[in-house]
């Protein structure tokens, strides 16, 4: 009997492991930080791009029903492509406000970028060395985080916002 039990255990373990391998094949092995949805963003302080005396912190964001924090740069090509969605969202200003964080960029280039394409942001923060973005859990440009009035992350978009993500955001802010 002893040997039979160990045989059953070994067979079940093998079947279980092979099943896990099979399921593992279906999983996407590249990592994105989507698992951080549901956590809160931590305290931060971003200085304004034109006037370093002015700044914004997490407390100010609590006044908005929803805030979209968008990380962009003038040297980033996909940022140009997603910009129209940001402009469109900025017109829904009753429900959602957009903050821009200018990542590792030159002030004048950023200003020219916004003059050329339009400015959807009610505040443009600067992040010259990229360190502030790390405290938001950013790893690629462009990237956007949607938070509610309690600063809980409800959506993370890595890469440029496309049509389907734009529509999702609209649904979430209703």
């Amino acid at each position, binding site marked *: 009997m002893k*040997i039979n039990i160990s*045989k059953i255990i*070994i*067979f079940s373990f*093998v079947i279980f*492991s*092979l099943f*896990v*391998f*099979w*399921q*593992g*094949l*279906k*999983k996407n*092995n*590249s*990592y994105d930080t989507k*698992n951080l949805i549901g956590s809160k963003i931590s305290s931060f302080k971003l200085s304004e791009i034109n006037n370093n005396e002015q700044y914004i912190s997490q407390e100010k964001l609590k006044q908005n029903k929803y805030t979209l924090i968008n990380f962009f740069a003038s*040297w980033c090509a996909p940022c140009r492509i997603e910009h129209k969605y940001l402009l469109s969202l900025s017109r829904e200003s009753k429900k959602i406000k957009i903050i821009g964080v200018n990542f*590792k960029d030159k002030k004048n280039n950023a200003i020219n970028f916004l003059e050329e394409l339009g400015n959807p942001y009610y505040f443009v923060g600067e992040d010259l060395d990229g360190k502030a973005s790390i405290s938001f859990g950013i790893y690629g440009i462009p990237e956007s985080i949607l938070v509610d009035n309690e600063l809980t992350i409800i959506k993370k978009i890595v890469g440029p916002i496309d049509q389907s993500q734009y529509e999702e955001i609209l649904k979430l802010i209703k």
Partner: protein
Amino acid sequence: MLSNIGIGLVTLVLVLSFLTIYTATLDLKTSSQTIKKSIYKLSLFQTTFTILSFLTLIIGFLNSDFSLVNVYENSHSEKPFFYKIAGTWGNHEGSLLLWINILVIFSYLFLVFNHTHDKKFRLYTLIFQNTLILGFLFFLLSNSNPFSPIYPIPLEGLGLNPILQDPALAIHPPLLYVGFVGCSIYFSAAMASLLSNYGGKLFAQSIKTWVKISWCFQTLGIIVGSIWAYYELGWGGFWFWDPVENASLLPWFAITALMHSLIVLEKRNTLYHWVVILCLSTFILSVIGTFLVRSGILNSVHTFASDPSRGVYILIFLSLMIFSALTIFFTKHKKEKYNFNLKSKETFILANNWFMAFFLVTVLIGILYPIFLDVLTNMKISVGPPFFNIVIIPLVVPFMFLMAIGPKFSWIKSQNKISYKSIFPIFGAIGINLFIFYFFGEYSLLSNLIFITAIFLILHSFLDIKKNISKKNIYQLPRIISHLGFGLLVFFIGINHQFSLEEDFNLKVGEIKKTDNYEINFQDIKIKERKNYKAIVGNFELTNLKKNLVEYLEPEIRIYSNPETLTYEAAIKTKITSDLYLTMSNVSRSDYYNIKFQNKPFMVWIWISALMITFGGFMQLSLKKNED
């Protein structure tokens, strides 16, 4: 045309494999003591056509015949001759054909060289081996065919990836495959031995040469891969506990354990079932490794382009293999009586297996845990070098100690006198360690123990060599050399790890960085146009402040146009006493360059020690032949 020839040859091999299984099954039932001549002929034809099919693929690469998808995707008319050939096995489909070649060649050689052994045993081995061959042939023909045609025929190939054009990288796969795939033959032999009740000493003798061959090539393959990683990948390391590296290490632990247990099986006719389990596990681990690497289930620096359909196929093949092995083992398993005295060589070899099993299980758990966690709880974690180092290194200490004193014990039972004399080198080891600690720098308790046991093993081995040479006995030398190599390897890795200097900083052209021991002058940047790339070459003047020595290093950033890639070439100066290592990469949108500088003492001795381990293995193979 070539496509048809290739597919035709492979199909022919398929048919011959079926015929071999069929005739062998029939021959099992005859009362004759010798194997039918026709089976030998079938095997010979099978081997010939398999090799021809591989040559066909090589010809396709050499002629830059882009009518084959495989050649189109992995070669280029401007690729140098040697790398065109190497391109044959540097891709998934071609390497699969190489697998099949090794399976077939080993099948034939095993048949021919074991003619003194039991007929049923050899026939069963042939049947199981050919079943494996059929499995791989089906995989090749249905999913990963290197001879798939493409129409219209493209004018030029895609495969000019510069990283793959390196001599070490070119020979690394074939070396590893002889190891990985070579263990298929003793998988089949183990199954055969269970079914034909051919165990014990004779079974051990039939497979021992094959185990040793696969061990030597597996070890060499792993070493060459590490040397390539060190010189080519630009991070100054040689082992990253990357899933693909670990996949090659798993069979290595099993083969090493098996090699040692075979000695016991042959000498004392015991441990048969454990040896069978090891034989079965080794090839199963190879296939698990292949599954992990080729299916895309893991994220690694060196994955092949991955494809889930491959994963499904390999998984099905793996499942069939494991279930048939388990079924046959459990049906034929008989309780074995063990008669081991604590102070005997057998027990120490068992201890070796114990540690090998531990190392194997640790690496296996390290690779598989993130997969299981992800599937079961949707949590993604990383298991990297710190895990493996923390868990494994402490146990290397007792392992090396046992490695030194184990061989001193006799078979069955030892006298006490022998064990006490072996402990004397411990004092020498403690002394040398204290010397290093005092004069060169402090390190942790664990490092102290590592150094002491490594030096203990080294001293022991030197004493052993002296004794054996004075007695004119060369048969122990291979074992001593391999064990000595292992001790030296751990010792030099320890020294390298403890006393390496590493700096990571940003510098502009013309600036000088001063550290405690070095002054690094970023003199200038030159742009050079070479054959198929543009090189940005940095000129660095390094002054060793302590020794007042000046050296020059020239790391490069290479910009290739076809395909568009960027590589970073480290400047490495290899000397007997240390290596100097410098990499340079540009910081985007800035004038700064990120510089990584390392001084690695005794780096080249790590390679020498590792090669010594392999040398011992090869030496034993050639000695045994003379013995016969």
